[in-house]
């Protein structure tokens, strides 16, 4: 199978595109991690509240 020739623009901006891609992946991971921490914190807080009642 023949891949089309890489466009000059993609070659020129390879570092930039890779960097931006990594930043976006990291941002998604941070939002996900933060959600997990916040939600589990809320759940354990609610459980502690129930037990204490």
């Amino acid at each position, binding site marked *: 199978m023949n891949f089309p020739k890489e466009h000059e623009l993609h070659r*020129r901006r390879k*570092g930039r595109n890779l960097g931006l891609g990594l930043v976006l992946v990291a941002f998604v991971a*941070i939002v996900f991690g*933060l959600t997990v*921490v916040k939600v589990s*914190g809320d759940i354990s807080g609610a459980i502690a509240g129930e037990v204490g009642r």
Partner: protein
Amino acid sequence: MSDASLHNVTYENEAQFGDYFALLKPRVMTLVVFTAFVGLLAAPVSVHPFVGFTAILFIALGGGASGALNMWYDADIDAVMRRTKKRPIPAGKVTADEAKAFGIALSGISVVMLGLATNWYAAGLLAFTIFFYVVIYTMWLKRWTPQNIVIGGAAGAFPPMIGWLAATGSMSIEAVLMFTLIFMWTPPHFWALALFMRNDYDDAEVPMLTVTHGRRATRNHILGYTVLLAVLAIATGFTSIGGIFYLTVAIVLNAQFLWGAIKIWRRNEDASEADNFVVERKFFKLSLLYLFAHFGAILFEAGLTRYGIEVL
């Protein structure tokens, strides 16, 4: 323009990822990261490590965003000064408008994310810090008064306070002391730089104290601020963020810093030029160690308290 000339355009000066990163002033960011980290850990409450990491990251990003906005507004000055002419805008890698858009976008992201990760007081103070650095310092004070560094220094002093606020959600005297430590440290640090970067600020027509009041007055001011800083830094040792370790570090470093300021004060221009500003350069280098060591000591004391270790 013909088709041929369109295709002959060269892109060798095109911005790479590193150029956008350089807009964030990574060296200044290390100071922001470190002092915010100390502020967060010195606070008397524990923060989830991931929340703490996120808070530091977005405080740093907010600092970086204000750096990009500073480079947008000061592109004309940066192009003239030796120290800054290789920055992405004067180097022709990034346009000033791109830097502005980049800075505004990152400011918004960092403030909102800090608010979501910690609390809106910390986010509000981060927003105010960006505003202070960009509008009060960069747009207004920098080109208007020789006290630019003194008042503008507040922007660099906010990060430990934001870190503390992110952890506790409230303000305290310890956070104010950490702020004041950086605030009082900034003028002697920058004025020493202005002394040996001689013509840079003159050429850029930035009213630094060296330009408006002369180099003798600058030497006097360095000594005055260093004396005040020493009193404040040592007094911090007697508060809850201090301790015997911090006090030892503070006494040794303030004695050295004070001695350096006295040497600068006693010198004249002929002596400085004869040895290419050796004393001023050493003082500048020491000022970097000074700040990192003081905050390192606060961090160490916080670690001791957290693990219940008593030194004396």
